[in-house]
Each structure stands twice: as C-alpha cells, then as structure tokens.
C-alpha cells in the first residue's frame, strides 16, 4: 500500500520532470530537469529492491555524466531564439519519432500475444538476501563474456577519445614536470667570480 503510494508519487515527479526537460526554455534548466528525472528513476528502482542499480544510476549519471553535461551547457552561449526558429521545421520528424516510440510501447504492453510473461509478484526474498552479491555472482558467472566484452568496448572508446583529442602542436610551450624535477642546480646556475674593483 505504502509502496504503491510512493510509486505514484515519485513517478508523477518523474513524468513532470521529463516534461520539464522538453518544455523548459532555458537549456541549463532542461539539463537540471533531466538530473531530477534520473534521480526519480533511481528512486523507482529502489522501490523494486534494486538498490545497487539505483545507487549506480545516481553515481554515474547524476554524479558524473550530468555534471560534465552541465559543464558544457553552461560554457556554451546557446542562442535560444535561434533554436526555436527551427522548431516548425523539425516538428514533423520529431512527431514521427515520438509516434513510433509510443506505438512500440503500446504494442508491447497492450497486445500480450507476444509471449512476454508479465511480471508477477516477485517471490519473497530471504532475510539475508543481498542485491549486490547476487548481481556480482550473475555478472561474473553467467554473463562473464558479455560483461568483459562491454568493458573492452568501453576501453576502446576511451582510448579513441583520448587519442582524438591529444594533438601535439608545435611552437607552443608546455610544462614538462619530469624535466622540471630532473633539473639540477648545475644545469641552471653558473657561478662567476667577479673581481672586485680595485681602489686606484
């Protein structure tokens, strides 16, 4: 009962903030609504006892991805008026995409002949049940290969991103810490003995 009330409470906020992402005129506010939407979906996962997924969603998406997102949006000087000019032009395409997505969801949810078994009430969990342990066990046994493959794909993406942005430009000064640390007094200072002027 309480869970149902909480579910509807948080999903109302979720839908509201998702609408806010689309409807708000200020891009920074839109991004902040997206943050709220992520947070609310994490809360919904918590209600499903998926605490690990919920916390990781907050940690990765809210704590890291959206911070960098906001960082970029705040730096850009976005001309809102110019963006709105293109609205009527792109609206039909957007409508088609939205329609397709709604149709897919309706197809899956409404027509149950796809053979998808609907979620029934989950079996009661034992008292010492640990979401994290079970998830780790499944990831490192049954899904070992896909898990490792995903890790390799991410690694390749990371290396690619770094190598794309690392440009070695000539003719500009760059700090070389190891060269600075390796510098000795003898390399830099020359002691010159200057004879003092003699009184004539």
């Amino acid at each position, binding site marked *: 009962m309480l869970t149902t009330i909480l579910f509807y409470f948080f999903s109302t906020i979720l839908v509201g903030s998702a609408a806010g992402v689309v409807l708000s005129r200020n891009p920074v506010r839109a991004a902040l609504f997206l943050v709220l939407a992520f947070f609310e979906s994490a809360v919904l996962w918590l209600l499903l006892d998926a605490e690990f997924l919920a916390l*990781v969603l907050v940690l990765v998406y809210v704590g890291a991805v959206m911070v960098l997102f906001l*960082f970029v949006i*705040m730096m850009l000087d976005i001309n809102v008026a110019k963006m709105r000019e293109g609205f009527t032009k792109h609206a039909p395409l957007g409508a088609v995409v939205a329609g397709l997505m709604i149709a897919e969801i309706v197809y899956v949810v409404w027509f149950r002949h796809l053979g998808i078994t609907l979620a029934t009430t989950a079996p009661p969990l034992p008292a010492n049940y640990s979401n994290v342990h079970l998830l780790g066990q499944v990831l490192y046994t049954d899904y070992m290969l896909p898990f490792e493959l995903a890790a390799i794909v991410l690694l390749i993406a990371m290396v690619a991103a770094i190598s794309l942005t690392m440009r070695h430009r000539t003719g500009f000064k760059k700090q070389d810490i190891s060269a600075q640390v390796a510098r000795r007094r003898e390399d830099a200072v020359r002691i010159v003995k200057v004879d003092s002027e003699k009184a004539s």
Partner: protein
Amino acid sequence: MMAHVPGLAWLLAQWSAMPAYLQLLIVKTAEIIGVMLAVVISVALLTYAERKVIGWMQSRHGPNQIRIFGLPILKGVAQPFADVIKLLLKEVLVPSKADKVLFLLAPMIAIVTALTTWAVVPFSPDFVLADVDAGLLYILALTSLGVYGIIIAGWASNSKYAMLGAMRAAAQIVAYEIAMGFALVGVLMASGSLNMTAIVSAQSGSILHWNLLWLFPLMIIYFISGVAETNRAPFDVVEGESEIVAGFHVEYSGATFATVFALPEYANMILIATLTSVFFLGGWLSPFQGLVPADWLLAQSSFLWLFIKILWFLFCYLWIRATFPRYRYDQIMRLGWKVFIPLTIVWILVECGMVALRVGPWAQFG
C-alpha cells in the same frame, strides 16, 4: 523506581500501547534529529577550532572575546554562535538578474546532500541510523551530488566570478571523485562488503588488522582527495579570493551564505574525517584491542575511539591549511588525473596480488 512517578508511568503505558511501527518512527526521527544537531553543533565548534588552531600556528590569538554568558572560561568559544546569529539576522540578497528559483534552491541542495550522507555512517557497534547493505555506494552517490549545490549556485548567480568558481568546482570534484572511488575499491577488496558496519568489523583484531597497514597509499590518496573534494586549502581555487573574489558564493549573503557555503563545507570536512577513520583506521575499534587484556577499559571499542580519530583528521585539515600555499589550477588537475588515479590503480593491482597469494589479512581465506 522510575515508574513511581505518576506522569512517567502514564507515558510508559502510552509508549508500550503504541504500535511497533509508530515506536520505530518516533525513535528513528529522534535519532535523526540528534545526529543532525550533533553535526551542526560540531560545524560551529569546528569553525572556532579552525580559527584558534590556525591562529596559534601563526602566532596569533584567534577569536578571544565572546564568552558564554560572560563567564571567564574559554574565551571566544561563543564566537561561532555569534557568527551564526549575525548571519541569520542579515538580509538575504537576491541579485536582480539571477535565476531566483535556482538561486534559492542551491543552498537547499548543498545542505541536504551534506546532511543525508550521515544516514549510513556507523558511529558505534550498535548505533547507525540505517544499516543498509550498499552503504558505501550510498555515500559515493550522495557525495557526488554535493557538487550540484555549487554548480547551481554559481550558475544561478549570473555573475562571472561565481560562474568561474562553479566551473572549477565541477572539474575538480569530478577529477578527484574517481581517485576516491578507486581508493574505496581497495577498501572493498579488503573487507568484502559494501556495508559500513561490516567494513569496520572486518578490521577488528588489533591495530595491525586495520586497513591502515595494507592500504596505506590508498588512505593518503583518499584523505587528500577528500581535502580536494571539500574545496579546502590547498585545493580551494573554487573560492580563490585573490583571483575570483570568492567563487561560487560571491553573491550569497546572510542565511543563504551560511547554507550554501559554510555549513556544507564544514559538514563535509567532518564527514571525510569520519569516513577516513571508518575505512582505514577501524572506526570505533580500539587500537589496543588484542594487545592488552580484553576486559581493560583501553581495549573496549566505543564511539570515543572514533571521536579521537575524527579529531585527528580534522586537525590534519587545519594543519594542511596553515601549512601549504594554494595549488595552481593545472597542477590540481595534474595531481588528480595523472598522479592519484594511476597510483590507486597500481595499488589495486598490488592488492590483487596480495589476495591471490593470501598475504596479510587475506591469509585467513587460505
């Protein structure tokens, strides 16, 4: 004997007549309020300690005028409370071009994230507000939310200096969070659990069983990253008085200044000190456990040991602030990305080797 007092007997009867969930609700609410009050009062006393300690380190007196009811003890100890009263009585100014909703929302976000993290901190063997299974992840998730208070404050102020401070904060916190996360991976491997109480219990035995010994590099990195995460000197370029005036909180005044800047920063300092003690110094465990007879007072594990460890790390915070000059911004970034993250990864690999070879604390898994 207590039950002879008529009013008390009536209260006790009312209490036992209550349904269990209501009792739990009342007890937990009282505990939460107690922890919050303790944190807020500690913040006030920490600001006093900071000014006194740094004063002594610089051959000054620090605050020495305001006393409690004019009593001739502890001169200046009421200074933080006077400051709080002053801040609360001042006018809250909102810049006319600011985003008013977000401008007032930022202090709330900052204070909520600074206080909610305390929910999973284990204070003593039998006192923790919520003994959740994924406590460590909860702490990582919530501390990563703290940056929103700063970013939103900086952006909503509609001021160049505040904006620059917010940018610096975002880049710095994201950089050091990764090193912090990796340092905690090492803690996880040593304790085998995400539960905070289990992390402390895994270190019981003697002082040689603490994570301090095997994870020493990770402890240093965790604490320094914690200093950077809380934007304290020498990593306080987010405020950088000499370059960007006061950074993200330049437009805040009065009560909003206290909640966007002072309270979260000091509460997070205490939190980092507590977490470093919990993760690496065995939390509430006594250092003499297993070294002196178990029935001695010294060997008893209690909150007092945690308190001493927290005080030590807080003193380190102040000590560092009085000692080191501010880092240059690119050096901060270099330290975070190019020094700390590789170091933690190397030490995780070393730890993997120790686990595989069953060395040290992992010998018991033989």
